């Protein structure tokens, strides 16, 4: 059964390439909440601080909180980009992440080449990638532009392509950052439908969002983050009541 289990999960980003020394002086002057020095005497940003949660199959979880609360870092950690600095994280199930749709795109390659490249990023073989190119081509409605370098695309066209490529998967655990916009009205409607399908088919949804409207419509449970800590975890209605 797909599930996500975090036990005292912590992520800290060391500040390597800034003037750590002067920063340290200032740190000592006023005791900050998230900047601290670790055991090796490095200045680190505590991005996530001892998170405990358990997401079971069937749950639709929203991550809410202000900018910089740690929502995207938590998504990336669950996706496997960052390894926990302390604590434990267990993610069972085929993961699909919609965090940055245009990651890994090559601006000088054509739309079709980018689709195949994305297929390779996901570990598909040539045949599967070629099938994916056909499907993405149809969905994005890019037509002849599919064989033109994406450097020449308009903003709307890029969004269509990256959306179509990113959403062509059937994950059990869907990790999603908020990025619903752009594209013309016709595409928006199809995009909405595709997303809803994806969300319904996934066993677990974790969505980071600022839009309470979307959170209330899609999610059953909300985890509220502040300063890298969980300050509330419960049914969407209760957690988002005063937001």
């Amino acid at each position: 059964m797909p599930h996500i289990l975090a036990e005292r999960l912590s992520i800290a980003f060391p500040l390597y390439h800034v003037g750590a020394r002067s920063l340290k002086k200032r740190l000592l002057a006023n005791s900050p909440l998230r900047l601290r020095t670790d055991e090796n005497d490095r200045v680190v940003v505590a991005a996530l601080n001892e998170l405990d949660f358990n997401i079971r199959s069937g749950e639709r979880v929203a991550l809410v909180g202000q900018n910089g609360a740690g929502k995207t870092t938590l998504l990336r950690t669950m996706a496997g980009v960052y390894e926990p600095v302390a604590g434990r994280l267990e993610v069972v199930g085929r993961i699909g992440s919609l965090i940055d749709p245009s990651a890994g795109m090559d601006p000088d390659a054509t739309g079709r080449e980018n689709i195949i490249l994305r297929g390779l990023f996901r570990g598909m073989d040539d045949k599967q990638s070629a099938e994916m190119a056909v499907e993405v081509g149809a969905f994005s409605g890019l037509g002849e532009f599919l064989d033109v370098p994406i450097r020449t695309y308009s903003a709307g066209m890029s969004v269509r392509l990256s959306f179509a490529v990113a959403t062509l998967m059937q994950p059990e655990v869907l990790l999603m950052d908020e990025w619903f916009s752009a594209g013309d009205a016709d595409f928006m409607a199809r995009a909405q439908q595709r997303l809803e399908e994806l969300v319904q088919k996934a066993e677990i949804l974790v969505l980071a969002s600022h839009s309470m409207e979307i959170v209330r419509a899609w999610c059953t449970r909300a985890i509220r983050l502040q300063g890298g800590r969980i300050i509330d975890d419960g049914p969407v209605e209760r957690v988002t009541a005063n937001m």
Partner: protein
Amino acid sequence: MISDSANPRRVRRALEDLELGARRWRLPVALARLDIRNRYRGSVLGPFWMTLSTAITFVALGLLYSTLFKMNLPEYLPFLVVSMILWNVFAQMVGDACTSLIAAEGIIRQMPLPYTVHALRCLMRNAVVAAHNLPLILVVFLVFNSWPGIGALLALPGMVLFTLNAFAAVMFLGMVCARFRDIGPIVGTVMQLAFFVSPVIWKPELLHDQQKWLVLNPFYDLMEVVRGPLLNMPPSLLVWVAAVLITTVNCSVAFVFFVRFRGRIAFWV
């Protein structure tokens, strides 16, 4: 996927990384191909500019040095061509290795991929570039009628050693340079120095009695196991032993480093 900071199982995860990266070789091949294509986008000769500029350099250098060092051309030019091409592969690989992970930052921070993929991408990119210069070696053999004969096959195990070292170097330097941004320029300086102290443009014979110490220069050993067979001057057993030893040390250091710090790379780039 379970990651537990109290029980990180680093060795196993590093091995899984290497295995998965190798199994998905299509990805680094595709990325390396795109890298090369993008570098020469819109150019008529494309990567063959490298062949052309290397060829011109050789003709000029060959003439200059044979006059300067009073060497006869048929004896000197094949040596120079093979040495320079090998050295260029070496130097470019090392230079590229320093930015292999930093340049992949956009991918590393967005999706989980075996880090081996980035190293293989760098390796393959450089292998393709190197392949464009290989015809020059054949041309020189043809012009000076200095075919090495069947002994040239010994260059193949030499190339295997060469490649293993390159892979280890890319892994190691990619990580170290991501963490300490000053290492890149330092490596550049060291390589420049190594170019002059290694017998690349000067023949080892010039050292006369001191020649026996050359085996202590790792660049010499690794180059000699490929160069020697191609030039019909089979390297001594000592050079082979040294090359194997260097490869073992290189790969071990890179592996230990990779095991220990693999999980930190995403925080470094």
